């Protein structure tokens, strides 16, 4: 009798263990690593990425698209410092639960971390890295941002068609600014226009008067600006103060509400492109803007949208790679196969040969302190 009871207890235990094992197999956690500057000089971008990614993953986990699988986001702060970026890349590579990584913010850190991911074969998707060599590191690198090779010629054509035959080019002295200016100049010259002046300013420059004087002397029909909002707004203000009347064409990097606040009326008239338009009436964009605003008390901007899409592209790839059974190699293949992904920054495909993203750009103009879509 005793023996039978013991047997029964044993049997129950075994059953329980088996059940709990089954349950844990049913509720598997798959992790995405996210490296971004959550502190330091670029913390404002990192925080926005964290907001967007958290929003996307929470929506995904609630939607039940992968029953029994919980997606977990693991954030690490890179401070926009290559040293830390490389350490994080190692840390994520060692973490077997991570099947894919998103980040980093700037190209320097993304490139340095990319060398590690290429070695350890972890798919890396950057929401913003625009360095021309980034996806050439290895077949494990992806990005969710148009490169200037696409955006530059498009803006060049826009400027040329609007009647400008001579332009002056000014851009920030970093990898992004170099390729922004280079691609615009190439595109503009190919159309038969002339470039009167090409000037680079070092990051952190706040006084553009000497550059503006030089530009004014070269008498262009229009000015192309490759800058971010901090420098861009100072440039626009000083341009007005110096009395330059030429229209300004800029890249999507200036699509930022802070530009309007900092530059004030000086921003009026600026032409720029963007992949994400916050006022868009498309239902999925409007839903994203509404959910983001409800949760974080502020409208999402371009970079927030880019991170939201990057996270969703990664989530899609994990689903395609088999959900609970996803491996790093399968996620890489699924990412490479991304086609016509309906993102809030436009329909996105990754070119099968180069892995470069293809996104449509909207044309905007600042009118009365607002971004307005133009033809």
């Amino acid at each position: 009798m005793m023996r039978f009871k013991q047997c029964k207890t044993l049997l129950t235990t075994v059953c329980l263990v088996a059940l709990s094992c089954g349950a844990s197999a049913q509720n598997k956690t798959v992790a995405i690593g996210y490296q971004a500057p959550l502190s330091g000089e670029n913390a404002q971008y990192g925080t926005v990425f964290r907001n967007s990614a958290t929003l996307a993953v929470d929506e995904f986990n609630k939607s039940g698209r992968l029953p029994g699988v919980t997606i977990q986001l693991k954030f690490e702060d890179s401070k926009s410092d290559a040293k830390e970026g490389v350490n994080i890349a190692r840390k994520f590579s060692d973490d077997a639960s991570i099947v894919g990584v998103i980040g980093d913010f700037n190209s320097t850190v993304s490139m340095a971390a990319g060398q590690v991911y290429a070695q350890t074969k972890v798919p890396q998707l950057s929401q913003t890295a625009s360095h021309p060599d980034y996806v050439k590191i290895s077949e494990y690198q992806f990005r969710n941002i148009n490169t200037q090779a696409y955006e530059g010629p498009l803006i060049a054509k826009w400027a040329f068609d609007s009647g400008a035959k001579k332009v002056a080019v000014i851009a920030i002295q970093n990898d992004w600014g170099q390729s922004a200016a280079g691609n615009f100049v190439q595109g503009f010259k190919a159309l038969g226009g002339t470039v009167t002046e090409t000037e680079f300013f070092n990051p952190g420059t706040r006084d553009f008067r000497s550059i503006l004087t030089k530009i004014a002397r070269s008498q262009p029909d229009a000015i192309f600006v490759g800058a971010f909002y901090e420098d861009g707004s100072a440039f626009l203000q000083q341009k007005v103060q110096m009395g330059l009347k030429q229209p300004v064409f800029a890249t999507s990097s200036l699509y930022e509400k802070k530009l309007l606040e900092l530059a004030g009326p000086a921003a009026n008239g600026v032409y720029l492109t963007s992949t994400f338009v916050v006022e868009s009436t498309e239902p999925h964009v409007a839903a994203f803007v509404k959910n983001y605003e409800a949760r974080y008390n502020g409208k999402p901007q371009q970079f927030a949208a880019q991170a939201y899409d990057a996270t969703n592209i990664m989530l899609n790839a994990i689903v395609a790679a088999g959900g609970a059974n996803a491996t790093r190699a399968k996620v890489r293949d699924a990412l490479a196969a991304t086609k016509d992904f309906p993102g809030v920054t436009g329909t996105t495909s990754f070119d099968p040969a180069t892995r470069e993203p293809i996104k449509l750009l909207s044309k905007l103009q600042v009118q009365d302190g607002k971004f307005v879509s133009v033809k």
Partner: protein
Amino acid sequence: MRRLISISILLLAVLLVLPGVLSAVGGGYWFRVTTTIGVFSILTMSANLITGTTGLMSLGHAGFYGIGAYTTALLATKLHWPFFLTLPVAGVVTAVFGILLALPTMRLIGIYFAVATLGLGEIIHVTLLNWVDFTRGPMGISAIPGISLDGLFSASDITNYYAVAIIALLAALVLGRLTHSYYGNALRAVREDDQCAASMGLNVVGLKIQSFAFACFFAGVAGGLWAHTTGYISPGDFRFSESILILAMMVVGGLGSIPGAVLGAVILLGLPEVLRPIGDYRMIVVGAVMFFSILFLPRGLLGETSVLSVVRRQFGLAWDRTLNLGWRQ
């Protein structure tokens, strides 16, 4: 005999115990962190010779680190030189640059010297950034080959670790011999009172330039190690903030002390990694550690001289009206 024992314990710890523990803990991450700490230990030890021993407040060390890194990266990618050639050449090139750039600043003292080296660091950084044809400017240099030797070892975490560890040990040996000798005492005499040292017949300018050259040599080698172990460098890695980081490591570890320099690098690079689990607050803790270490341990953890006394002496001179505005005749 005791010396022999302590040296063998050190060698055993760095070359066997530490990599053993790191492999047991499992992997790439801690090897990578230790490699970075190793590179910055070399940098801090070398900067320590200028600031800690000779008493010159240098704020441009990251620039020399950058020259070494770029020399290595360009030689390795353009001319395909192996690491055993790139590293010494990087050191020599950096030392030559160090001497050339230091010459005009050698008559400056105190805060003026500090500001001049700050300028040097910025000049180097801006040159790396804007000389696009040669350095590729902000694009940086990628695909720098790792440390490997055909048939013997290939690039891996362990190779990187050993390369950095062995060179750090060599740097510690050379810099240790330099500071703990009659020569080192001469350097200390310059730190404590350069006029007095000159009156005793020491060639103060010569000593300053020599200490600059030795320090720049090792800064260049450290830069080369960084380039080889990371595979990608860009001017952003050699900004002013890196010079300040090196200075902070010296201050926390203790000015004038070689174990202190290593300890400073371990604390300021290791602590942010160990504290990753607490997320956004980790840099506050790191800042607090720095704050309290300077408050309660003005000599640093292992320092031979107090930072405050060096600063007071250096900066005090600048405000002394009886002297000619920071120029020493």
